[in-house]
């Protein structure tokens, strides 16, 4: 019997559900935004109003104060929220791995919950926590001040977390840190579980302490996973959007102190109605992500050779 589809086309036919979606929602927007980055386009004037303007959008960005500010905000947030994630996740994973047996899955599950919770719900909750006059964070600080000694280092007046430019970024970082630390812990825990037990047994026979085992066995063998999760943090951190967007009411807060590049791109398109410049921002951001990912890769491979 002759097959309904020729063998030559059969693979494509079976792949088509994915291929069609990928082309429509993946390839097409990618190419369209690349085209748009070199165009001027006022979308309410229709497709005909598109006009090629060469590098004008990129020229504008280079001189645009807000673009550089948003990039600075993004890098600040990526570092301050990103590095502690790993510094906490690795020891935490090691502790869970060594000390917890029956409750391990439960504990890991609890740490993982923020990662799968709706960002919008969390950001609303966090804005309530960070509220100046009614928030739990400021109440805690006021309560801690009653402990002798702490009154000297803690501020006496309520902190305006989301209104004062210098406080917005730390508040956002705290939320991002809280959200992703569990995710990284799960990654590291999985990697630790793959380290053969015999290695630890041999080290113990040689008299290595728990601390030594951690530094000389666990950490070096975690390196591939570190590379993977740091790369994820770099990419995720540079594309940060939802948390600051909801926490600052979509504007980026006072003096745009919490406006990330992804947010600026969104606002340029949908608020300022300038899709060409917004596409240029997205490609500029892509290059920053590419460069920093490459730097991360270099860091992990050079330290490996030494």
């Amino acid at each position, binding site marked *: 019997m002759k097959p309904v589809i020729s063998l030559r086309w059969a693979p494509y036919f079976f792949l088509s559900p994915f291929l069609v979606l990928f082309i429509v929602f993946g390839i097409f927007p990618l190419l369209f935004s690349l085209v748009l980055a070199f165009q*001027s*386009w*006022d*979308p*309410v*004037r*229709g*497709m005909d109003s598109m*006009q090629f*303007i060469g590098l*004008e*959008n990129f020229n*504008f960005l280079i*001189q*645009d*104060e807000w673009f550089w500010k948003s990039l600075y905000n993004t890098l600040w947030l990526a570092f301050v929220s990103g590095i502690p994630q790993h510094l906490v996740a690795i020891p935490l994973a090691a502790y869970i791995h060594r000390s917890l047996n029956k409750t391990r899955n439960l504990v890991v599950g609890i740490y993982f919950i923020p990662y799968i919770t709706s960002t919008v719900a969390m950001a*609303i909750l966090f*804005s*309530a926590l960070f*509220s*100046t*006059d*009614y928030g739990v964070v400021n109440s805690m600080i006021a309560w801690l001040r009653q402990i002798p000694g702490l009154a000297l280092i803690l501020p006496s007046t309520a902190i*305006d977390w*989301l*209104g*004062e*430019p210098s406080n917005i970024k730390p508040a956002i970082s705290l939320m991002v840190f809280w959200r992703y630390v569990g995710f990284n812990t799960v990654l590291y825990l999985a990697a630790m579980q793959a380290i053969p037990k015999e290695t630890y047994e041999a080290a113990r026979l040689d008299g290595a302490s728990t601390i030594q085992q951690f530094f000389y066995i666990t950490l070096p063998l975690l390196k591939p996973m570190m590379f993977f999760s740091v790369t994820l943090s770099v990419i995720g951190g540079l594309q940060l959007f939802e948390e600051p967007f909801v926490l600052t*009411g979509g*504007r980026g807060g*006072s*003096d*745009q102190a919490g406006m990330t590049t992804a947010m600026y791109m969104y*606002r340029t398109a*949908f*608020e*300022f*109605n*300038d899709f*060409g*410049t917004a596409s240029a921002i997205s490609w500029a951001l892509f290059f920053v992500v590419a460069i920093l990912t490459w730097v991360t890769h270099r860091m992990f491979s050079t330290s490996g050779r030494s």
Partner: protein
Amino acid sequence: MSDLINHMKALSKKVIWKKLLANICIGWLSATACGVRAENVTINVAAFPALDQIVKAALPEFYKVHPEIKVHVLSREFADHHTAMTTAIATGSNMPDVMLLESGYMGRFADSGALEFLTSPPYNADQYQSKFVSYTFPQGSSAEGKLIAMPTDIGVGALFYRKDLLDRAGLKESDLTQSWESFVQAGEVLKQKTGVYLVGNARDLKDIVIRSNLQPGEGIYFDVNGKVLVESPRFVRAFKLARMVRQNKLDARTMAWSAEWSESFKRGTVATQMMGSWFGGHLANWLAPETRGLWRTAALPDGAFASWGGTFYAIPNKAEHKKEAWELVKFMTLDRDRQLAAFKTQDSFPALIATYQDTYFDQPVPFLGNQKSRLLWRDLAAKTPAIPLNKLDPIADEIINTEMDKVLAGKKEIELALADAAIMLQKRIRHSMRR
């Protein structure tokens, strides 16, 4: 998912029926019977809350007058709706027959050329101009003065204040409204005697002062020739007043619509709020229902007039059923009963002057201490001037707000901040010209 499947099923049924019907028509060769059938059209109305409710509530009456038209209301959230309308126009697909637009987005759509000129035939809406509050037609028009959207509701700017707090501080309403200086002074007395803040955010003063006392031909940020106005005395005064409020710690430093902001009304820590007249409804319904009887409303300080939004009905060029769409638009905007119903149920203040003699306006408002506040808003509406819009207004707004933040934080002097704002705006203009 099951919704989608049901929808698909319904759709395919519809298609089958249409085809069947078409076949029967051809078979019969009876043009009359099928002709009637073909006139029965469905128009799509793209709306956002609470306008979607207003249109839906009006449909039973509309069907009595126009049984041949079926109306399908498509509702999206406020910002999503306007993004969807932008996309619809950009791509020319999924175009509704009637499009609701909020005045804040008028600058974007007014000169797009994608909406029908309602002052031209067959609409000839210029005949209705005198029926509407005077500033609404200019607000709904393109730069060349052609009407692209019919006004339905307006947001008359008003001052809301807590009478009980004022009484406790020994202040009168006129202390707030006489001038901006007296407004700030009253704030200091309030703070001293009651400990409450004058306003939610110092920026509120700036927002109104830059929108009041415009000279003929001036928009907020640009004049009609595109000249940047942000270094004018109007802006300097606005910035100075806002800074004074912040320096004297008279504002609660909350962002409007944030949790903190709404909490401040529940707890009574803020004494005034300047906003559209619909704010009274928000206070009564969800912000602070327990403060019933404590609030009053007045004109804005210093004889300022401002409009807080307003809604318009537009018909896209590429709409399929423009004739039927126009019937609905006329019904929603020119019908006195519809406008009053929307006012009574959704606090949507009518743009149609014919409603203003209704007894509803004379009724006291219990939440506002039985004040006859609607009469006040009605008078304010008549005096509110039209402000020419520019499509760069949203970006100018952001530039000014960012510079305002710097001034309020004490990081920049006002003159320098405004000069920087002017430079940034010039850059944006050049970029928008080149693009």
